[in-house]
């Protein structure tokens, strides 16, 4: 019991789920997020991310690629927002993708994405987005 409490992350720790099929991209985003002072979780596609939430886990922010095998980012956004996960309606989702056409951005927002970052990105770009979402960072 005591062990379980000890392993539970502090409620003040901000947790981010990074969904991207590219290990290199996950590494870059993970590095940024840890520099911001956050803990990170990762999934290589939308389907694995859905399993993460189905297991009853939750995060404070989701950063999601669009083009991924098995379940794409846009499919994940629709599935997650439509799920009965406790945080399905409240967790901000930032799409992070090379797709930068107006129609794609519009499609992502309509599906339930909170905001959008176009690749290539930098740490400053993520910092600006976090500021916009009112999320504190180092």
């Amino acid at each position, binding site marked *: 019991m005591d062990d379980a409490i000890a392993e539970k992350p502090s409620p003040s720790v901000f947790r981010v789920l990074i969904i991207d099929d590219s290990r290199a991209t996950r590494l870059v985003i993970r590095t940024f997020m840890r520099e911001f002072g956050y803990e990170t979780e990762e999934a290589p596609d939308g389907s694995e991310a859905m399993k993460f939430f189905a297991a009853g886990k939750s995060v404070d922010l989701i950063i999601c690629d669009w083009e991924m095998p098995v379940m794409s980012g846009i499919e994940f956004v629709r599935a997650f927002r439509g799920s009965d996960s406790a945080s399905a309606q409240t967790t901000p989702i930032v799409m992070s993708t090379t797709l930068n056409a107006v129609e794609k*951005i519009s499609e992502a927002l309509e599906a339930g994405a909170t*905001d959008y970052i*176009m690749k290539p990105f930098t740490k400053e770009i993520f910092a600006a987005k976090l*500021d*916009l*979402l*009112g999320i504190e960072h180092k």
Partner: protein
Amino acid sequence: MAITSAHFDQVKQLVAACSGIHLAPGMEGYVEARIEELAHVLKLKSSIEFFRQLEKNLIADVGFLLSEIVANKETSFFRDGHPFDALRQQVIPELMTQRAAEMKLTIWSAGCSTGQEPYSAALLLRQHFPALSGWAVEIHGADIAEDVLAVAQSGNYTQADINRGMPAPLLLKNFQKTGSNWQLKDEIRQLVQFRQVNLAEPWPELPKMDIIFLRYVLSYLTPEASQDILKKVAGLLRPDGYLFLGSKETVSGLDDLFSEEQINKAVCYRLKSAKPKWSVADDDW
């Protein structure tokens, strides 16, 4: 060739005298790169040729030219977030009540660089305060450098510019994609008037301002220039107006003029001579 310390000091003095911009030790490489660019613009062979001409006093307005090129151009849409949250949550609603009779609101972004700050204010007003559509809303942007003002006036931004702080819903609503860039729609662009202003010199005629953004300007100036500019800001700000500085920037030394006020996570400054709120009620009696 690395810039000599004598040349760096010469540039530093010329720039400080003209615009109050402080070139700190360690900025030699930055200054050298900017001078290479300036030499190219002036159709000189190199920075060596530039300094040769400088010694012979052959370059007109050289202090101003140097100030333009070394001025900090860093900016982003909705920079830091908090000041714009403060605008939305408190400052604009309060000013709308106080200005209900005159229906006029004035905002100045001093040191606006490529225009993201005044356009962020314009987008915020348009998005959250539709009641202001019948008001005379004036948003002014000023910067010392002509090249950044040209970008500001065009309202044309790269994807990297957009990525830094533009919320996707506002992007879709207010910009059109033009090739790889994004063009701000005229209806927003026309809300902001830009002009070239050297903050260290006498200012052009400007209306009294309800809100002044002087963000990430003071930290690049000499202490003397900072104080002079803040005093002029105090003269331009309406008695119940709001001044926003960059994070970590303060009105140090001018605590008799300004008081600090916290609005949620944002810090702003008010004039100490501001009419207390209760006296407005007194007027109503």
